[in-house]
């Protein structure tokens, strides 16, 4: 998926914009918002602390455990006319449903308590994000969720490994303490490849494209909110 930043964020949407162009624009907005998130600013500046990393994992975990369930729920709501999407969702849910265990091992490897991690609650942003995802997945044929995948898998593929490397560099962490973020570079790159194939397969009509873009916008905003509202 392109992240071509030559597309201005405020470029008017015209009928000639492809779905890829429109999603790229959402991505650019997300990047701009992420640049304002305090923990990511500290990460970039090299002032991030082990506590920051621990709290990030703690907060992410509470939402990541919901990832496979909302994808599964979406899968169950695709009818037979959307067989390709149902198959993709089932496959994806299966692939992701053990991911949070990796995150939990990272958390323990830096000294965190598994019991505390598992008794944690979602932050304000995670509540909103997870609530929205489950709500959306409940709709018949929730094609718009491809927009959510575009954002979440895109973050995994394009940003997580960079964050992991920077946390390692600043905090002196071993690979086995940043498994979750490192793994997502490979796994989500494969997923974004699958997603791209679907988006360009011709099964997405104009109405579906509008839904996908809208869903991507909401999820981009709520994902950033999740990172902004750590521990709140």
């Amino acid at each position: 998926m392109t992240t071509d930043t030559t597309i201005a964020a405020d470029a008017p949407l015209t009928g000639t914009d492809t779905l890829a162009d429109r999603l790229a624009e959402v991505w650019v907005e997300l990047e701009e918002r992420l640049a304002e998130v305090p923990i990511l600013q500290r990460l970039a500046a090299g002032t991030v602390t082990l506590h920051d990393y621990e709290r990030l994992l703690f907060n992410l975990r509470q939402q990541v455990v919901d990832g496979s369930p909302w994808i599964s729920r979406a899968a169950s709501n695709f009818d037979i006319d959307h067989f390709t999407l149902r198959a993709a969702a089932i496959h994806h849910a299966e692939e992701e449903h053990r991911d949070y265990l990796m995150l939990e091992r990272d958390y323990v490897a830096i000294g965190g308590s598994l019991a505390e991690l598992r008794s944690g609650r979602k932050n304000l942003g995670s509540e909103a994000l997870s609530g929205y995802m489950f709500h959306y997945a409940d709709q018949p044929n929730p094609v718009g969720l491809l927009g959510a995948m575009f954002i979440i898998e895109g973050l995994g593929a394009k940003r997580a490994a960079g964050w992991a490397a920077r946390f390692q560099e600043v905090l002196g962490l071993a690979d086995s303490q940043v498994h979750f973020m490192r793994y997502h570079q490979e796994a989500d790159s494969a997923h974004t490849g699958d997603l791209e194939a679907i988006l360009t397969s011709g099964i997405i009509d104009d109405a579906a494209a509008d839904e996908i873009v809208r869903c991507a916008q909401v999820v981009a905003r709520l994902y950033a909110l999740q990172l902004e509202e750590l521990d709140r």
Partner: protein
Amino acid sequence: MGSMATAYLTGFGAYLPGDPVDNDGIAARLGGDDPVTERIRRRVLDANGIRLRHYALDDDGEPTELNEQLAVKALQAALDDRGIEASDLRMLACATTMGDVLVPGFASMVHGRLGGGPMQLLSAAGVCASSLAALDAAVSKVRLGDHPRVAVVGSELSSRSLRQRRFDGIRAGMDSHFLRWMLSDGAGAVVVEFQPHPSRPSLRVDWVRQVSLAHEHEVCMRAGMSGAEPSTGHTWQDVDIADAEAAGMFVLRQDVSMLDELADAGLAQFEELVDIGLVDVTKLDHVICHYSTNMFRDLAFDGLRRRIPTLDTDRWFSNLETRGNTGSASIFIALEEAWRTGRFAPGDTVLLAVPESGRFSFAFAHLTVVAPPDQPSPQQQGALT
């Protein structure tokens, strides 16, 4: 090859049981006050230079504590020094020459007494260098990112086997007297973490290295067999216990005629560290060397000074004379005292050296003093990570 974490020593503890015992107080505890033994003891004490030591024995020579208790007290001191609890540990690596019981392993007993949560254990057996074998395991697991916090302890309670009852009716030459009047009790511990101490300096572990030369040397220090070579059917486990005792198998012995060879081999190992670049003699600030007697201090010191002409007594630390030779605990007891008494400054480098006579093992560790994270020292910027 992926990235590894860095291991730091962040807490230090030592425990020496009872009051220090001076040279005149030894016989009351260990016995051996006949004129011949008395004469041998004076001779050995003159050579080893030890003035004070501790025994986990009361005035009548009866044990006051278990070895595992010494270990736990040193560990507790190290945890207190770091400001953490046993429940914060994920691994415990214990070194001792002889635990209190044959089974289970020493670390299991220490963990059981220390408490805390579930953790990985290592019981490093051997003699003096088992201390750094335990440290090496701890440092390796921390570097791999498998454990955020590990405690390491070296602990010895040899005094109970040095008492007269072990020697009654046994042929005891210099091979046993040398150790009898040299060894004593104590424990030393360190906390190893993947992050430096948040508010005070830490010791970064640059490397740990242990080399055995058993392939080309006979046994030097031993118990549990007659002579220097075990033979099938004739170890302490094979023969009747009474026969084993009568044969003197329960007396710890050392072939003192091999000690010069041991010193030479140890210096050759040090030379190799310099030759392969693990030790930069122009940047080595402190040496903490375990040695059994002052005779070897002079040998080692002179040997090191051949490579480090600027080495002076200020950079050389040992507390053998006042804490005794506590085997696998010695290096940690010395490190704790050097640390606590403020010998080290950020940027300084420290070499730990532990020769083991058992069957010629040599262990070294290289440490660098690092400032707390909010006060980086200039030396840290070029640090290996």
